[in-house]
C-alpha cells in the first residue's frame, strides 16, 4: 500500500527475552518518531499483549509443530490515520473455533459494552485456577476502539496460520 511504511518488524519464534528486547527496540523507535504518549502506550499495550499471547501459545504447541512451518512474526506499520500492528503464528485447527468465537464476541460489542465485558472477565478471573484472566484480546479492542481483524490460512490438516491485525488511530 502506498501510504504504508514499516516501522518495526521481527520474524522468528518469540520468547520472554526476545519480547523484552523488542519492547526496548520499540522504545528506541519512539525516540525517533516521538509518538504522542497516549498513542505510544496504546501501541505498547497491543504489542505486549499480542507477543505474550503469541509466545505462550506457540511454546505450548512447539513440540507438535511440523518442520518448515511459517515463522511467527510481528510488524508495525505507519498507515494513513495511525498505525497497524500485525502478527502471525501457527495455530492448531482444534483451537480455531474457541479463538474465533471469542474474537467474534469481542467485535460485536460497542465501546460501553466492551468495557463492561472486560470488567466482568477481570472479575471472573480473580479467583479462577488459570494463571491469567485471559483478557488480552478484550483489552486490545477496548483501548484501540477498533474491531479485531483476523484471518486463518490452512497449513495442513492439523495447523493453520493465524494472522491478527490491530489498528491504532492517532485521534482516538
Amino acid at each position, binding site marked *: 500500500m502506498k501510504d504504508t511504511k514499516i516501522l518495526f518488524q521481527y520474524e522468528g519464534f518469540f520468547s520472554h527475552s526476545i519480547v523484552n528486547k523488542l519492547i526496548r527496540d520499540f522504545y528506541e523507535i519512539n525516540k525517533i518518531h516521538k509518538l504522542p504518549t497516549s498513542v505510544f502506550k496504546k501501541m*505498547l499495550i497491543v504489542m505486549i499483549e499480542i507477543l505474550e499471547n503469541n509466545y505462550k501459545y506457540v511454546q505450548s504447541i512447539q513440540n507438535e509443530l511440523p518442520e518448515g512451518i511459517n515463522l511467527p512474526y510481528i510488524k508495525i506499520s505507519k498507515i494513513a490515520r495511525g498505525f497497524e500492528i500485525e502478527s502471525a503464528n501457527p495455530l492448531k485447527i482444534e483451537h480455531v473455533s474457541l479463538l474465533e468465537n471469542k474474537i467474534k464476541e469481542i467485535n460485536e460489542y460497542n465501546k460501553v459494552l466492551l*468495557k463492561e465485558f472486560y*470488567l466482568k472477565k*477481570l472479575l471472573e478471573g480473580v479467583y479462577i485456577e488459570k494463571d491469567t484472566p485471559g*483478557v488480552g484480546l478484550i483489552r486490545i479492542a477496548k*483501548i484501540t476502539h477498533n474491531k479485531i481483524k483476523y484471518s486463518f490460512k490452512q497449513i495442513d490438516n492439523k495447523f493453520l496460520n493465524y494472522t491478527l491485525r490491530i489498528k491504532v488511530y492517532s485521534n482516538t
Partner: protein
Amino acid sequence: MENLYIEPTEITPKIVFDVKNKTFELSGISRPEDVVAFYESIIFKIDQYVSHLLKNESEVNKLKFDLNFDLTYINSASSKYILQILDFFKKLSLKGAIINCNWYYEDLDDQILEDGEDLSDVIRMDFNFIARI
C-alpha cells in the same frame, strides 16, 4: 508478618509492605515472565497477615492502611494478582479499617489511569487518582 521488600527489575515491580507503618507500595512495571511465581509468595504473605488481623475483628476498625500504586505498565496477567491483593485489603475495609488507596499516573498516560479505574470498578473500592505533572 515481617516487612516485605522486592527490588524492581525491567519486568517486575518494586513491592514494599511496611507492616509497622501500614503502607503498601507497588510501583514500576508488572509483566513478569512467570506471573504466578512472582506474585504467589506475596499473595500468600498478605493473605496470612490479613487473616491474622481479621481474627481480632474488634480491633480492625482501628487500622488504617495506605496503598500506593505507582505503575507505568501492567500486563493483563498481572491485573488478576493486583486485584487479589486489593481484595485482601477490601476485606479489612469491610470490617471497618480505613484503606486509603492512591493510584499515581503520569498526566499524559491515560492508559495507566484507565487501568486504575478498571481495577477500582472491579474491586469496588474508591481510589485516589493522583496525576504527576
